[in-house]
């Protein structure tokens, strides 16, 4: 399946764009996406390892499967406030 991942802050800057399109097996999990992104953005594996992911604007665990058509976002440790 095709997954679009929104990127923010340091990850967006590392990728040079604000979303990344990836091809993943149907029923892939957030954990699989995390590993795959580490390959796509080499040099940012540390950030990606400690980032969270959001699926449809809810924080998601690595075990969670990504539904087809979901909005997925890579959420580096936040620093608002």
């Amino acid at each position, binding site marked *: 399946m095709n997954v679009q991942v929104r990127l923010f*802050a340091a990850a967006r800057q590392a990728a040079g764009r604000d979303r990344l399109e990836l091809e993943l097996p149907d029923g892939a999990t957030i954990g699989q996406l995390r590993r795959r992104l580490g390959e796509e953005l080499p040099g940012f594996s540390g950030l990606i390892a400690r980032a969270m992911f959001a699926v449809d604007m809810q924080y998601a665990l690595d075990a969670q499967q990504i539904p087809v058509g979901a909005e997925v976002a890579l959420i580096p*440790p936040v*620093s608002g406030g």
Partner: protein
Amino acid sequence: MIRLTHDPIDPATVIQAVCASAAGAVVLFLGTVREKTGRRITSSLEYECYAEMAEKKLAELEAEGRARWPLVECMIVHRLGHLEVGQTSVAIAVSSAHRRPAFECGQWLIDRIKEVVPIWKKENYADGTSDWVHADPGNPIRGEEM
């Protein structure tokens, strides 16, 4: 009430939004851009956010605050974009009949905002360098159950 804005935050407007005849106490928290962090001199900040999710998370925090404390009103405003030293990045105003809930909820809201709301800041230092500030790996959030 919650708001994300690129315009300067006026504290008086935020206070006004929570004043009410049922309130005996108002607590306002302002986060302001500090010149020094450790030994580094900050010249300005940039705030970026995942807008739709940040609004959703802020609304959830407001709802949880209202459920946990007997509030009269609550308003949270977060600034985005470019900020100079001394400017306000976040304003949280809470009113309640008595002072304890307003203090407790105000403090809880800023703690939680810094943990869960998808907003990021980039520090531009006086020496010309800049860094995205990302909380340390000890960040406890793992999955929505948090």
